[in-house]
């Protein structure tokens, strides 16, 4: 509550001083446990702001909305640490100018929500390094453990089962702040790389490609997983890939706005044990 009140005041100050043209935050949703994105442009709108532990959605995807940042004015946004990592990646991939973003950071443990110190992306580099070194989530997801114990065939069958529910609504893509391509690979048809139909093969291909395109870029905000209307555990694939790039290349996505994208860079001594 205190954090929320403090931030309401901050938002009003930011808007009043003209240092931001808009703040992207949260407001109550259609049921008590839901929160929905809020675009604050006036002091009255700021009064709708809600900040608590149920504010889960990573809002950073809205920053790359066409035209939002093109007037070079600044925009404030409420972000959890994963959200801050997202905008670092967007900046590193030249999708936005990090100078235009005013970060209103927060994090939560249990039901407690607390503000994070800082306003600019750079202010959080210490925090992010800490998270890299000491991941908060120490316990591994039981389902992930189960999958890792399976053999190839069992894993294939497991994912077939999961992907068979996919309806190709692309909620995972649209919800993901990293999926900003104007024309997604699945929408390109010359050539048609992957089947657009939502049969098991098409679903499998889509999900593989989506996961690959997010390898080394996903910050595990969970947007895709929450967005999926057919409850495919997308987070598991993303988690696995994040572990892979961390172990393989010591790459923690979104550490800084100038971090080199892991798959667009290399080291001469990268591991190659798998190459014949």
């Amino acid at each position, binding site marked *: 509550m205190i954090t929320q009140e403090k931030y309401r005041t901050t938002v009003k100050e930011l808007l009043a001083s003209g240092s931001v043209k808009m703040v992207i935050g949260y407001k109550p949703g259609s049921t008590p446990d839901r929160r*929905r*994105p809020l675009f604050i442009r006036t002091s009255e709108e700021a009064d709708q702001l809600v900040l608590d532990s149920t504010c889960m*959605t990573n809002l950073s995807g809205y920053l790359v909305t066409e035209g939002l940042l093109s007037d070079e004015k600044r925009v404030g946004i409420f972000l959890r640490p994963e959200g801050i990592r997202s905008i670092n990646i967007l900046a590193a991939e030249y999708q936005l100018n990090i100078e235009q973003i005013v970060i209103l950071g927060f994090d939560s443990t249990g039901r407690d929500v607390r503000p994070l110190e800082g306003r600019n992306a750079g202010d959080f580099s210490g925090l992010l390094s800490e998270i890299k070194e000491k991941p908060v989530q120490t316990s591994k997801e039981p389902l992930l453990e189960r999958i890792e114990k399976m053999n190839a065939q069992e894993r294939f069958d497991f994912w077939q089962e999961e992907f068979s529910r996919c*309806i190709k609504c692309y*909620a995972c893509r649209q919800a993901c702040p990293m999926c900003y391509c104007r024309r997604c690979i699945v929408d390109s048809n010359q050539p048609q790389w992957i089947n657009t*139909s939502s049969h098991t093969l098409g679903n499998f291909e889509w999900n593989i490609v989506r996961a690959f395109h997010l390898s080394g870029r996903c910050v595990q905000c969970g947007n895709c997983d929450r967005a999926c*209307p057919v*409850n495919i555990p997308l987070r598991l694939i993303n988690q696995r890939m994040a572990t892979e790039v961390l172990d393989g290349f010591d790459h923690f996505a979104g550490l800084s706005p100038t971090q080199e994208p892991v798959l667009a860079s290399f080291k001469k001594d990268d591991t190659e044990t798998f190459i014949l």
Partner: protein
Amino acid sequence: MTRILFSDKLDNCIAKWRSAGLTVIGPVQGESLSGYAAVEKAAGFEFGMVLPERPLKELFFPQTEPMLRYTIKKNEIDTTDFTAPQGKRIIFGARACDASGLAIDDPLFGWDYKDEYWFQRRNESVIVTIACTKADDFCMCTSLKLAPDSTKGSDVLLRPIDKNRGWLIEELTDRGREAFAIISDYLQESSEPAVPTVVVPEKFNLDACVTWLQNPENFDSKFWKEISMRCIGCASCTYLCPTCHCFDIQDEGDTYSGIRRKNWDSCSFALFTMHTSGHNPRSTQSARWRQRIMHKFNYFPGKFSVNSCSGCGRCSRQCPVDMGITETLQEISKL
């Protein structure tokens, strides 16, 4: 006196229907998703949920469906039709909103050109709807002038009796009567009253909304931009909608052989209306959301005299950013 189907007789009924050649389909709770699926035993059903997460529509208009197979030889093209799978089905325990959805789409699939994929399945399916005794915050059939016990699109309406012991039977069509004649041995006469259906509060004034939508001035209202600002442009609302019927036609294969498929498509996608020239009639998300609302409550009723919404509330329930028809119409009511 009404006839009753007691739950403990359901297994016999299923067996009877199955031996009569009907596939028995109903609400099923999967490991991580609920939907309508075929069962062999009554235990496979899950009647407790408000409504299945996946819509009934997909049993009539699947997410992907082959239409034609082609084989190309030199100066010769062979095509074979895929028809919708034959076989009679009984859908036991549909929700009134899902059943209405089918009736809403009938005129669309049938005007001038008949879509046989839809009608083949429609003709072979008996819809047995169970009136709702439970609703959640998103249910809104009453706002659409329908009801938890609406008979639209159903062949038989069942009303639950106390303690889930069975259902009162209300046969609505010949097809329904035929299907229940098969199991007449297991039905009993009774005067037991039905459990009252759930009261779903009205969420918005539909007439006021429609009047607002029909006013051409409001087409360019700032409202559309405001309401759809947080829309991320995915298709979960349209794909889970029991009445959304847009589709795409895609070829899979190569120059020699392959198939042509009919796939779900959505007005939420930017590419849906994009011209070859690059011109896009609905180039913004607000234009696309406006189209969806206008189509459901203004254009579609103008053509087919029925709203293209049955009030299931799935759009709002599943929306990743908590949008949906309910909120939009509620906001319009306030204007």
